[in-house]
């Protein structure tokens, strides 16, 4: 009896295995495709659907279909949203530019074999990995205008104390500093990987022709490194456009709305004002924006190559 069961079971397993062998390219990705559709694609469609409705969570009447009116309000009427676009672009442009420049410099510096290079690289990865919420709290303390260590250290070199996060003009640059601290290591990592795969031959022939260090960098390293640079820019732009944790923990969009980027604006619409349809429309807009910017960057990369 048990023997027969065993045989049957083995036969069944055999059948499954044969079935997989017949359609491997279809069945291997199937579980992931099903799960991804369930956890990502369907919610996104639902989000899109919700963005066509007027709905306050506090309203017992439920959602009401209003077509594209949420989008019309976002783009035409809502002054706060328009300002949040500029803030997002300002934050992204400033952070990405500094991170790329700094990251390139550090990558060039570290691009050699030296004693302890492994340790240095690992140390550089720490800001990237450390829990952003916890590190943002640390920065809040360091930025404290009266007791913060930052004002103290800058005071040593003669910089007068600043209000940092509570100054409407300084708040975004202050947040940029945190983003630079956290994500420059990512640029360094990507560029180091790019640098380590550069060919040696062009350098040798250029050096024989008498090229100086600066010429080598400008005419050989930079052009050859362009693919890695574009990858780093692409991912940094995508991520800074979407930054949430750091800003939410440090300022919650304040003071006033001075650091309210699109992502925080969507969060406020949805989870503070409970204006769900509107929040959906804002989040769809943000997603489209990130998508468009990445498409442009990818196109630029193709043109460059």
């Amino acid at each position, binding site marked *: 009896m048990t023997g027969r069961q065993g045989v049957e079971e083995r036969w069944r397993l055999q059948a499954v295995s044969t079935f997989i062998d017949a359609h491997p390219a279809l069945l291997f990705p199937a579980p992931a495709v099903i799960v991804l559709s369930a956890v990502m694609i369907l919610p996104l469609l639902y*989000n899109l659907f919700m963005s066509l409705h007027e709905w306050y969570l506090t309203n017992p009447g439920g959602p009401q279909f209003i077509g594209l009116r949420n989008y019309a309000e976002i783009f035409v009427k809502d002054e706060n949203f328009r300002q949040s676009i500029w803030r997002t672009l300002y934050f992204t442009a400033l952070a990405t530019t500094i991170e790329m420049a700094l990251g390139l410099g550090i990558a060039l510096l570290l691009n050699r074999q030296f004693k302890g290079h492994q340790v240095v690289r690992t140390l550089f990865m720490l800001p990237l990995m450390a*829990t952003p919420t916890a590190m943002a*709290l640390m920065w809040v303390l360091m930025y404290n205008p009266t007791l913060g260590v930052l004002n103290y250290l800058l005071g040593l070199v003669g910089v007068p104390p600043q209000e940092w996060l509570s100054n409407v003009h300084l708040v975004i640059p202050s947040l940029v500093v945190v983003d630079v601290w956290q994500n420059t290591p990512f640029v360094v990592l990507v560029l180091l990987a790019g640098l380590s795969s550069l060919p040696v031959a062009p350098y040798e022939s250029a050096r024989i022709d008498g090229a100086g260090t600066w010429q080598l960098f400008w005419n050989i390293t930079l052009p050859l490194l362009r693919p890695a640079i574009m990858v780093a820019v692409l991912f940094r732009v995508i991520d800074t456009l979407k930054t949430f944790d750091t800003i939410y923990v440090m300022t919650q969009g304040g003071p006033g709305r001075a650091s309210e980027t699109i992502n925080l604006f*969507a969060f406020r619409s949805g989870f503070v004002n409970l204006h769900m349809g509107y929040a959906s429309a804002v989040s*769809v807009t943000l997603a489209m924006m990130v998508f468009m910017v990445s498409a442009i960057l990818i196109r630029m990369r193709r043109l460059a190559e």
Partner: protein
Amino acid sequence: MTRMAAVAPHQQRIRSRMYQRALSQGAFYVAVLLVISPFMFVFFWMVLSSVKTGVDQTAWPPLFVFAPTLDNYAQVFRRVPFLAYAMNSLVVSVGATGLGLLFGLPCAYSIARWKQSKLAVAILVSRIVPWISFLIPWYLMFSLIGMIDTYLALIVTHLIITMPFAIWIMISFFEDVPVELEEAALIDGCSRLGVFLRVAAPIASPGIIASAILSLIFSWNNFIFSLILSGDKTMTLPVTVFRFMTYEELNWGGVTAAAVLVALPVLLLTFVIQRYLVKGLALGGVKG
């Protein structure tokens, strides 16, 4: 005589070159130190602040030398059920990572083996769409069926972080597995599943470790999903420190100790598995 004169400048030149090299080596290390210290200072200050007494916290100028105390850490455990929340974080990140790998690995293998680039591009959607676009619909659905503040809600949403990430990294690791080996196994009568489990997965295991650790970290670090979808029962650590901060604004010692406790496992993990991480991070080019 002439020979001596000829040798001496030569030796001198060698010696001066040695000095120069030592000097430039020194300058290099100084430069590295200068570059890395601002990045490390935040960690240094975090640990330092976490062992200061309340009085030392508010000293001006800020103290660099003082009598350390572990009282802040004791406070964290006293004021909030810290261990229970740490357990929540662990359950969610391990659950989401395990499921993400279970579903994601065969998919990554398939994309690598059968060049399913369209599928790979579809995976990238998760990189582009902001978390909030997933959070709003999931929040509405979970509140509709009364599943806010459950592990399932958190694990399901954290799958959005872990699975696409693991797939994206693993594609290139599976591409590195020599096809000849797999074909040999097939000829020997191994099934496709067998090839995947006994040939491809073991060869790609450094990648599997890298993607598992990174998924674990990014899920552990995630803030926005837990902020909305967790409650008293399932609150994870990033939300715990944030709440700790809002309730105990002036208790810097407690806040920094909590921050250390949340970030420490991640930092240690980074050190332990750094050799697997560099390739994973550079390849994936992806962060949670």
